[in-house]
Structures are given as C-alpha cells and as structure tokens.
C-alpha cells in the first residue's frame, strides 16, 4: 500500500464528475426502499427481491465496473499513470493500492447503501440486511479486483466490463445453472444466504465454494494486474 498513490486515486475518483456515477445507483436503491416501506410497510419478501435483483444483481457489478476500472484505466489512457510508474515503487504495490481504493469505495457506495435499504424494509428481521451487506462486501472486493485487472489489460475496459457485468453476471450467471458457479453475483448471494434465515431466499452455490472462489479470483486478478503493470508499455507519438 502506498498512501500517496491512494490519495491521488481518491481525489481522482471523488473530486470529479465520476462521484455522481457512484452516488446515483445507491441513492436510487435507498429511494426505492424508502418508497416501498412507505407504501407497503415492512416486507421481508420485497426486501429480498430488491436486494437480490437490484442491490447485488445490478448495482454491485455496475459500481464494481465504475470503481474497479475508474481507479486505473483513465490514467493509463491519458498517460498520467507515468507520474506513478516513473517512481521507485514496485508496480504490484501500485496495483494493490488501486485495488484497496476501489474496494473501499464499494464498501461505502455499495455495501453500506445495501444495508441501509434492507434495514429500511425489514429492520434486523431474518438477518436479511446483514446477510446482503456481507454479500455486497465480499462481492464488491472480488469485483474491484476483476475490474481493476480489466483496466490494466485492455484499453477497452469499460466496454468489456459492461458486457461482462450485463451479459455474464446479469444473464448467463443468473439463469444458466452450470454458469452460476462462476458468477461473482452468485457468490455474493451465497454469502447473503448463509447469514440470513429468510424463507424467501436460497441459493444453489454453497458457501464452501463461494468464499474460496472469491479469494482465488481476487488474489489471482491482483497478481495478474501487478504483473501486467510491471510490463506496461507506453508508446510515443512516433
């Protein structure tokens, strides 16, 4: 971890228009939860559906994409990354620091709003709020690493990331039984399911598979990103 790299990255992420992208979805989630609570009162079934489809199913991968690629891809694209790379700092340290920033942003803008929204709808009932918060936390960490890697390996990180988030995580991982085992969204739901006793919610990926899978994907993506950053080439105008 490098404090200067983290400081610059936080300023880049929070001091510009990108913060609105981070804020928009959580505000929508909390707004929907407040509205449903006002209309129907506390409802565990509604809470589970909202958390599963919107919080973990839509918001988490999209925020993962914004935070994970946003901490590094724009700097590689416009060349500002040279300021960090032309210093006596190991490149894997830079990758890990960028990951930590992305993961912390997902805690604040994904996991915390998930808790607030679920708590608004169900309180502490059946552990739904705690379960989905932990699911978003674990899933957010894995997404941060995967999208950071995308930001390092391809100049089209956002395009590739959108396709991954919407097609693989949203469609294939959600509806194709065999592919569910290879979906971060499903792993996050598995964590949520483990810590919740709600009868309205069950997953077919076990925690024993989901947690090691998330650890392997996170560590593997970070190692790969560090290695790619070590050999990152910058070409001139000629």
């Amino acid at each position: 971890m490098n404090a200067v790299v983290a400081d610059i990255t936080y300023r880049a992420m929070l001091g510009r228009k990108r913060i609105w992208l981070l804020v928009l979805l959580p505000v929508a989630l909390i707004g929907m939860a407040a509205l449903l609570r006002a209309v129907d009162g506390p409802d565990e079934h509604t809470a589970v559906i909202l958390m599963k489809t919107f919080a973990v199913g839509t918001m988490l991968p999209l925020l993962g994409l914004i935070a994970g690629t946003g901490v590094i891809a724009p700097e590689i694209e416009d060349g500002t990354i040279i300021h960090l790379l032309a210093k006596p700092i190991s490149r894997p340290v830079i990758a890990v620091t960028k990951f930590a920033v992305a993961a912390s942003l997902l805690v604040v803008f994904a996991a915390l709003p998930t808790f607030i929204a679920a708590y608004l709808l169900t309180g502490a009932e059946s552990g739904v709020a705690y379960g989905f918060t932990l699911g978003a936390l674990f899933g957010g960490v894995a997404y941060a690493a995967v999208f950071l890697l995308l930001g390092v390996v391809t100049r089209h990180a956002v395009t590739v990331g959108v396709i991954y988030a919407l097609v693989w995580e949203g469609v294939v991982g959600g509806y194709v039984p065999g592919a569910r085992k290879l979906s971060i969204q499903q792993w996050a739901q598995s964590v949520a399911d483990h810590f919740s006793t709600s009868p309205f919610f069950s997953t077919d990926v076990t925690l024993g598979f989901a947690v090691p899978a998330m650890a392997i994907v996170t560590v593997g993506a970070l190692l790969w990103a560090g290695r790619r950053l070590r050999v990152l080439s910058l070409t001139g105008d000629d």
Partner: protein
Amino acid sequence: MTMTTSPTTTRQGVIELGQVSRWYGNVVAVNDVTMTIGPGVTGLLGPNGAGKSTLLHMMAGFLAPSTGTATLNGQPIWRNHEIYRLVGLVPEKEAVYGFLTGWQFVLSAARLHRLPSPADAALRALDLVEMTAAKDRRIETYSKGMRQRVKVAAALVHDPMVLLLDEPFNGMDPRQRMHLMDLVRDMGRAGRTILFSSHILEEVERVAEQIEVLVAGRHAASGDYREIRRRMTDRPHLFRVRSSDDRRLAAALISDSSSSAVALTAQGIEVQTVDFRRFTRLLPKVARDIGVHLWQLSPTDEDLESVFSYLISGPTSGGSR
C-alpha cells in the same frame, strides 16, 4: 556502428543502448541503434516520426526493446523500478493530474520518492522552474507552458542524476524556453546526464554539447553539434529564383563555381549550389552588377526531412560516427 561517448563520462548515470531495435508488428520504429549517453547535455534530434519517443521510452523503462539491450549504469532498465531513484522523466504528453494544484503534484512526486523533506524538495523544484507563484492553482488552469514546467519540477524534485525530456520546449513562450534551456545547461555542467528530444535543430544546438540524430528509426549521425551543423549547412541546396530577367541571371550564376547546376523553368530559375555561404553572398551582387531585379528567392528542399535524409544518404554521411 561506432559508439560515441562524452569525454567526461563517469559511471554515474550512463545510459547504454546496444543494438536496440523496436518494432510494432511489421513496422520498425527503431532499427539497430547503439549509443551511449553520458554526463552533459545530449540532444536527440530527428524529424517527427523518426523514433525519438520510442527510443526515449526504452531509455526510461516504459518500452521493452524487441532486440538489443538498454542499461543504466550496467543495470537493465526494463522492469527495474529502482532506476527511478536516478532518473527523472518529462514525457511529451500532457500527462498531469489536472485536479491537483502544482504544489500537490510536485509534493506527491517528492513523497513518492520518499525524500526526507518532501515539502522543501517540492518548493526547491518549483522555484527552479519559476512556478512558485502559481503553485496553488489547479493544473487544469495552467497554460501549456506552465504544465510543461510543473512536469519538469516533478521530474527534478529528487535531484536525479539522469534527466530524460521528450520535446520539453513545446508550448513554452520564448522567455520560459530560455529559462529552461539555461536550467538544462547548468545541470549538464554540474555533471548530470541529460537527454532531450527535439525536431528543431536550433533548439538542440543552443543547449546540447552532443547530438544524436535519428532518421527513420536509424542512428543517422552522432557528434558535436558544430560538426552536425556544418554538414547540414554544407550539403547541396536547391533554390528557386524569380527575377526581371531569368535568362541573364542564369547565365551569370552558372559561371560561378558555387552553382553546380542552373535550370530555366516556367516558375523561374532553379539553382543547385554546392557552397551555400558563397551563393548567398554572390546572388545579390551578381544581380546588381547585371542590372537584374530579384523578385523571389526560395529554398525548395529546406524541410527537415530532406535535411535529415541528406545526413544518411549524402556523400559525407558517417563522418562523425
């Protein structure tokens, strides 16, 4: 290929390229370049697209040679972040965080180098490039020249032994340019190894003691700037002249030894001269003596590409390397 070294070379801050080539697919950007950059100021000169930035990026550790070796003090440059303790880099791109102030940008560089007194180092570097007054403004409000100077300050903050600058004078006004040139010269005299790229000969000759010329990816010439300048000036030049009586003027010019060929064309006279200085003195004198008015005199081959091409294709090519 012969290597050229500065006579004051020490083992501190010496970049060596050994038969370095770099290609992208089928395109060869740098072709079999061997050179040594030692203490003092070296100008890397060449037209746009000659491969200067590619070569500089290989020296800075941001590009791997396809073949050959690039070392700093004998240590490989590629995949070696420790070299940045000795190297400062000023890239050509406006690669600066616009949301930071100049002070924050240079201070961050000092802290990334883990300097013992980062604030003092940042102030000193900003002062060197005369950016102290504007240090608290966001970089996105700076002019191009100010951005360039703040990049230089960030590169100098750790007082590097080696400074690599890619087209550093671009975008600077004349006063800023003179100031940076003085700074670069002073650092060179102090024993720093400084390499800067440029496509402008005048820029290079005002600052650099040593010139390396790159043309179409090849190391075309190397040596003292006076030698390179002489070879560029003494090459055959082609001029187009329009006058009140082209035929009489042509007859007068061909009789002088400075003109190797004179042709009458629909656009006027085309004169090829082998002695540039003699011809430029002769032409107005001859015109006056025969009573011909000169309307237009224009060089037809003065673009940099032709000047540089002459260095590798001309009869005296290779004289200094």
